[in-house]
């Protein structure tokens, strides 16, 4: 068996007790504290990005309006808001919360380890991330304002200050993104090695809970795809600041090169954030339907298949961007092929519900909501992946609605699912179910009301990132204006309902009912630790005897069978 260093966990506790508050919360190496750091930083930035979306949606629906809380929106501000809403939501909300926070919390607890294998690298990762956040926030206030060339940062617009008029902001923004990548590379290496090497005795590859697998695969995808963009970011920074001409066609460079560097990362990035959310869903639907996951190995294989295929499809973002049309055919084929593993995965999730005993608790509502809405994001992707239809739909609101139907379920619904599910473990308190359900419906319904209309405005020819549609007679019809206004009002309603969550979160944290060790009767290892788990997680680290989804096994008294129970 695996060699175990016999250093009992209570030694850690004693040492832990001596740590001051600063050491405990700010300089912590404990994976659970680092999870909270990532999670709360991510949520704070979600508030910023959510506020941005409110401002520009108001301008879009009611052009020239004096937006409450902001004032008049100038074109420059509008582009800055749009750019930073996208970049923050992906790089500073979805990634830190879904991968870094849940990864940090769940990987050691779910594989039965006392911490990450490199706790200090883990701390460094968060510190670099925090630095990137600060630099990002600084970029809003430099001369010329924040970066305003869209989150895709296409040159020559972003490469030359004379075109973008936000020379400093663009460079500062690039530095922030590069640092953020470094933070996640460090974190990702930690996740992967932890899951590979630090598993509890007896835990084979097929006993690892799906969510851990998904976070690990996502980290690997990130690592394998981000390299070219890091190189590209350096090249872009030199173009901006040192006068090189990597992307300047007049001096021998090529702007299309950036698009390839960017999307070679950008497409796998979608799966980087998707997979953890899908993993969280797997944990929740099995627990709340008391069912074994349908075809564990199929889920795993489809995830790996999706990951590998995601490296072959990137140019479908560039169909009409001037790439060679013959190449577009190849990328159409690969893009539609990727629908195969993803469809399989959705079928598996639906099949898991069959024969279950389903309880519609708040986490389960979120998980089911994830599947229902992600499906819309998935199927509308076919329109865009098919090159012929993409000629019309490219860069319209149809695209925007499509990717919000993937990213919103991932980043928001997935996060809420995970948070409501693991809240008892993280904080030792139960959340209020009634408020949780109000919050769910108050988010889920307005969300659909925002983006279903935007599919239509896209079909009707609304292009993205346009500050004021009144310049275009065909886009100023009453129908389009009503759709836009409806979407905006829904957004305001949805943002309002997030207050319910904040209220629920704070009150449950302070006065909530105390949670037992395993309130949901789940199998995975984290539920055998105390709620919340102490430093070191267990007094004695668990040993694993079976897979994570042995629910409702015939001829047993309980309908669950913890992974570490001997019999």
């Amino acid at each position: 068996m695996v060699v175990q260093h016999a250093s009992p966990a209570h030694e850690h506790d004693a040492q832990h007790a001596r740590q001051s508050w600063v050491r405990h919360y700010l300089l912590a190496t404990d994976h659970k504290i680092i999870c909270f750091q990532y999670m709360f930083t991510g949520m704070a930035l979600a508030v910023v990005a959510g506020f941005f979306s409110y401002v520009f949606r108001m301008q879009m629906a009611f052009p020239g309006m004096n937006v409450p809380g902001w004032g008049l929106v100038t074109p420059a501000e509008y582009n800055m808001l749009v750019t930073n809403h996208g970049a923050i939501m992906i790089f500073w909300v979805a990634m830190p919360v879904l991968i870094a926070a849940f990864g940090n919390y769940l990987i050691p607890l779910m594989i039965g380890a006392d911490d990450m294998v490199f706790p200090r690298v883990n701390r460094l990762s968060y510190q670099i991330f925090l630095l990137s956040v600060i630099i990002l926030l600084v970029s809003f206030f430099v001369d010329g304002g924040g970066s305003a060339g869209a989150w895709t940062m296409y040159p020559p617009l972003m490469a030359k200050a004379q075109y973008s008029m936000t020379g400093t902001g663009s460079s500062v923004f690039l530095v922030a993104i590069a640092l953020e990548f470094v933070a996640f590379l460090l974190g990702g290496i930690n996740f992967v090695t932890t899951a590979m090497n630090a598993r509890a005795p007896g835990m084979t590859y097929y006993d690892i809970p799906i969510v851990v697998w998904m976070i690990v695969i996502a980290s690997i995808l990130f690592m394998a795809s981000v390299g070219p963009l890091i190189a590209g970011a350096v090249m872009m920074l030199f173009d901006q600041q040192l006068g090189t001409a990597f992307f300047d066609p007049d001096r021998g460079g090529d702007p299309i090169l950036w698009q390839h560097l960017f999307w070679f990362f950008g497409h796998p990035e979608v799966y980087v954030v998707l997979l953890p959310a899908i993993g969280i869903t797997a944990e929740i639907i099995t627990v709340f339907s008391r069912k074994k996951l349908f075809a564990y190995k199929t889920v795993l294989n489809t995830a790996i298949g999706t990951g590998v295929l995601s490296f072959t499809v990137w140019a479908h973002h560039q169909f009409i961007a001037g790439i060679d049309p013959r190449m577009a055919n190849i990328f159409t084929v690969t893009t539609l092929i990727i629908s195969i593993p993803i469809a399989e995965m959705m079928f598996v999730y639906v099949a898991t519900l069959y024969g279950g005993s389903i309880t519609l608790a708040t986490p389960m509502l979120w998980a089911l909501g994830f599947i229902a809405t992600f499906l819309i994001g998935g199927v509308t992707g076919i329109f865009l992946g098919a090159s012929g239809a993409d000629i019309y739909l490219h860069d319209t609101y149809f695209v925007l609605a499509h990717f919000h139907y993937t990213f919103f379920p991932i980043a928001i619904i997935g996060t809420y699912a995970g948070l409501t599910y693991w809240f008892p473990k993280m904080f030792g308190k139960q959340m209020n179910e009634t408020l949780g359900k109000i919050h769910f419906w108050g988010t889920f319904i307005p969300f659909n009301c925002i983006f279903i209309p935007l599919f239509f405005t896209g079909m009707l020819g609304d292009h993205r990132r346009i500050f004021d549609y009144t310049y275009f007679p065909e886009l100023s019809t009453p129908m389009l204006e009503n759709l836009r206004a409806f979407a905006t009002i829904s957004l305001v309603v949805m943002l309002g309902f997030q207050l319910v969550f904040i209220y629920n979160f704070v009150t449950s944290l302070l006065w909530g009912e105390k949670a037992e060790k395993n309130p949901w009767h789940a199998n995975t290892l984290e539920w055998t630790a105390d709620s919340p788990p102490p430093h070191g997680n267990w007094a004695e680290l668990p040993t694993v005897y079976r897979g994570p989804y042995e629910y409702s096994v015939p001829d047993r008294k309980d309908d669950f069978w913890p992974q570490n129970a001997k019999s």
Partner: protein
Amino acid sequence: MADHASHGTAHEAHGEHTHHPNYVKIWAILLALLVVSVAGPFVGIKAVTLITAFGVAIVKAYLVVKNFMHIDVAARLVTYLVLTMLLFMLLFFAGTAPDVMESHGSNWTKPSWVAGTAHPEAPADGHGQEEEH
């Protein structure tokens, strides 16, 4: 859950000792290869230069990876990992090169290339306004 037992078999975390080949010999081979790659261009044949430059570089890299980095000891997984990364880079190159390297696509041209005005030394005269086709 059949193969729980197979998990921890016999691998020891620490204390495994790498087989150490004669490093000085490998170093000498590497230096000899370096001489070859420097000498290559003096032959003056382009094909020879390419082989001595890049063929030799691949051989050198292989020698370092195998003997200095002990990739064969480090489990097959690592070999696959490195090969996968190289494969992804190949893929990136294959997808990107047609756009960046060609002067004519099936529906575009780079006028400055066609006119021969733009190479990295001399800035081209911007857009191809005057281009005849």
